[in-house]
């Protein structure tokens, strides 16, 4: 980094010390339906606090992007939405997370029911070692669908919605592993929407793909928005500006005394506002490329 940029970041850190640590949205940021209501959420792995002080509403039929440098907790928060953190021994979620009015972490809540409604697409495409058809049919099958005709219908619809049908309609019996990166990721998206979720979470869905496949995935996201609510984690800021309606910026707080790094939500607003007129200096430093 050059001297002047170092100064900017140093100044941002100084300002941060003066400003209140967390920027709460002053009033509900949007006017649509709130799908997720998150208040004062923190995630712990054992005695390590991974992310803290997260408060944000996620709106229906929008694409919300989580951005920030690595270690800032964006993936951790994303995984809290569909209770994937449960798979990590010692993981704990504090605070409140409501999905359509129901407490995601309440007693009596089944993570399996949660994940049916809130699906996830991963960074590295992970098609199962099965045929393309069986990949997409896996979800409906475990939910009890046995009727062959209905399954055929679901598979076709899902593959169409994922913009993959035309490319694979004649080779549905071929292994899912035989697809290229971009196709495999679209297969994973088809697989996710085959169970008819309400929300689709995406953890850096295009970061392992080439630029052309990335473009295809981004177009797909914009098409899916009308039916689903999408939350994506991305480290590609241009992608956030291209696809998302709303953006949340996460930042890593380093505690010099205990040498721990904890993620924190710094700012949340419409994508236009975050990138053109960020209110926190740390957000500004990040989106202008000087930090992270």
């Amino acid at each position, binding site marked *: 980094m050059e001297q002047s940029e170092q100064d900017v970041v140093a100044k941002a850190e100084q300002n941060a010390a003066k400003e209140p640590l967390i920027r709460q949205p002053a009033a509900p940021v949007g006017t649509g339906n709130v799908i997720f209501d998150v208040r004062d959420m923190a995630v712990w792995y054992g005695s390590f606090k991974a992310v803290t002080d997260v408060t944000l509403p996620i709106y229906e039929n929008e694409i919300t992007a989580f951005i920030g440098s690595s270690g800032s907790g964006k993936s951790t928060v994303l995984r809290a939405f569909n209770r994937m953190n449960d798979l990590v021994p010692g993981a704990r979620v504090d605070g409140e997370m409501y999905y359509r009015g129901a407490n995601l972490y309440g007693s009596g809540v089944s993570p399996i029911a949660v994940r049916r409604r809130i699906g996830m697409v991963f960074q590295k495409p992970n098609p*199962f070692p099965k045929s393309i058809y069986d990949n997409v049919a*896996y979800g409906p099958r*475990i939910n009890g669908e046995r009727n062959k005709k209905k399954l055929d219908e679901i598979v076709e619809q899902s593959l169409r919605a994922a913009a993959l049908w035309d490319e694979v309609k004649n080779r549905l019996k071929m292994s899912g*592993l035989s697809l290229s990166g971009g196709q495999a990721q679209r297969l994973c998206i088809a697989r996710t929407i085959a169970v008819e979720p309400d929300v689709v979470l995406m953890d850096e869905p295009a970061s392992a793909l080439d630029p052309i496949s990335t473009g295809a995935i981004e177009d797909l996201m914009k098409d899916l928005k009308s039916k689903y609510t999408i939350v994506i984690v991305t480290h590609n800021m241009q992608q956030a500006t291209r696809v998302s309606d709303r953006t949340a910026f996460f930042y890593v707080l380093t505690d010099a005394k205990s040498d721990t790094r904890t993620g924190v939500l710094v700012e949340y607003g419409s994508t236009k506002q975050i990138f053109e007129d960020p209110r926190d200096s740390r957000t500004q430093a990040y989106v202008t490329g000087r930090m992270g």
Partner: protein
Amino acid sequence: MSTVVKADSAVPAESAHPLARRRPLGDRAFALLALAAGLLVLVILILIVISTSQQASSWFSTEGWGIFAYNWNPGANQFGVLAFIYGTAVTAVIAVVIAVPVSIGIALLLTEVVPRRWARPIVYVVDLLAVVPSVVWGLWGILVFAPWANHIYGSIASGVNGIWVLGFLFGGNNISGASFFTAGLILAFMITPIVTSLSREVVATTPSIDKQGAYALGATRWEMIRGVVWPHSQGGVVGAVLLGLGRAMGETIAVALVIGSNPVITSHLFSPGYNMPAGIANLFGESSGVFRAALMGMGVLLFAFTIIINVIARGVVARSARRARGA
């Protein structure tokens, strides 16, 4: 694998020792010694084939294809060993049928269900099964288990006689605690540790991201195992099962004590029977001439069968490991 650097290139032309212009004698001798030790394996295997076949030659020439006949009667100079081959197959199959579900269950339990901390003690217990020597299994089998099993088998047999498949397998008149079934059961105990350990190695290589993909679709743990872990591991597990099968076929002493020493071919599993290694072990002492050659010949056949199964099994395991790494 090891470094490709050859000793020659490691010793520079003008090394510290001015006399070391070419590779020192001691170094070359050591390399040859290591090579000889390695070749010993191949030499032994070849010698086994040659020496035992040669000893069995009088049997081959006397009986011809009759070696596969069902007419074992040394007193009448008849040495067809089909009954022993049958017994080898039956006891090994029983062992595999019993041991494989148990072993896979334990492997899945260890990799998917129990927390890390409990895995090690459980593995210790399963490995303890392997510490019990074959002869001790046999001792316990014939002196303790067989008499007790005699009653149980008798009750079962009289109960199912006449019922279609059950009577076919478990009925009959010649019931004994020392039988095909007892031998197969004890073999199952003996092969469980190795099938479990190999299956566990395979199952543990399932990529975590595939498992997460299944969970993210709302699968229960069992659904995830069926949908992701199983397709990924089935090749390797098949290899492990084949290795268990090979091991069961060759186990001698425990079987020799509990199989009942009766060369028959029958579907009734509670009947006393015989198999190849047990036959060799029990009958060798009193044998001579063609009789002895026949036992040697059984050894040749047993060797051939187990080698074939082991080669196939190792091939299957290697291929699935390669695929798992590449995928």
